[in-house]
C-alpha cells in the first residue's frame, strides 16, 4: 500500500492507495504516526479513495490513529469510502466514534 500525505487547513490528509490488510497495516500505522509527530498536526483526514480492499485490520488502523490524535484533542475523519470498505467499518461500529464525510473538502469544513 502506498500513502500520499498533504495538508489542508491544518489537517493532515492521508490518501491510501492499494489494499489494507494485516500485512500492510503495520507499515501504514508507523508511517502515519511518524507524519503526525513530524508535522505536529492535531486533525487527521483518512482518504480511502484508493483503497480497493480492506479487512478488519483497517478498523484497528483507524481506531489506533483516533486514539493517538485524541490525546491532543484532535479529530479523525474518514472520506471517500467505497461500499465494501464501508461495510467492514459499519460492522465494526466505527461510525459511532468517527465521522464519515463524502470527500476531503467536506471533512475540512467539519473538523
Amino acid at each position, binding site marked *: 500500500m502506498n500513502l500520499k500525505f498533504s495538508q489542508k487547513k491544518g489537517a493532515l490528509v492521508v490518501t491510501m492507495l492499494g489494499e489494507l*490488510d494485516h*500485512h500492510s497495516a503495520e507499515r501504514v*500505522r508507523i508511517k502515519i504516526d511518524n507524519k503526525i509527530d513530524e508535522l505536529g498536526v492535531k486533525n487527521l483526514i483518512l482518504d480511502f479513495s484508493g483503497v480497493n480492499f480492506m*479487512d*478488519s485490520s483497517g478498523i484497528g488502523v483507524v481506531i489506533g490513529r483516533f486514539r493517538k490524535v485524541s490525546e491532543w484533542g484532535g479529530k479523525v475523519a474518514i472520506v471517500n469510502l467505497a461500499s465494501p470498505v464501508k461495510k*467492514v467499518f459499519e460492522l465494526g461500529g466505527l461510525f459511532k466514534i468517527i465521522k464519515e464525510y463524502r470527500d476531503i473538502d467536506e471533512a475540512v469544513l467539519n473538523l
Partner: protein
Amino acid sequence: MFKNEMKIEFPSKSQNEAFARVVVAAFASQLDPTIEELSDVKTAVSEAVTNAIIHGYENSSGKIEIECKIEGRTLTVIVTDYGKGIEDVELAKQPLYTSRPELERSGMGFTVMETFMDSLEVESEPLKGTRVKMTKEFKSF
C-alpha cells in the same frame, strides 16, 4: 449438480494474505458472482488467513492449507492451520474480543467471517491447530 474443488498450501507469511484471498476469489469466479459477493469472500478469507498467521502460528512459520469446493452454487472454503489452537472458540468468536490487544487488532475477524459468509464452523484443539469452514451460496440471475 456441478462440482469442482481445489487445494492450496502456503507458508504463514503475511504476504500470502493477499495471495490467498485472490486465489479463492479466482476459483469462485466460475460461479459468476456479483462484485459484492466476491468482495465478501475475499474479506472472509483474509480474516481466516490472518488469524492463522497471527494467532495460530503467532508469526512463527507454519503451513496454512485452503480447500475450496463448489457444489451447485455453493462455495465451501476450509482454512486449516496446525498452530497453537484456540482454547475457547466461543470467546474468540465474540465481537471485539482479541487475545492480542497490543497488536491494535479490532477483534472483529470471526464476526466478519460470520456476516460476510452464510455459515461458519470453527474447530480447534490447543497445540493441534484450527480449522475454519465457511460456506456461501451465490445467487443466480
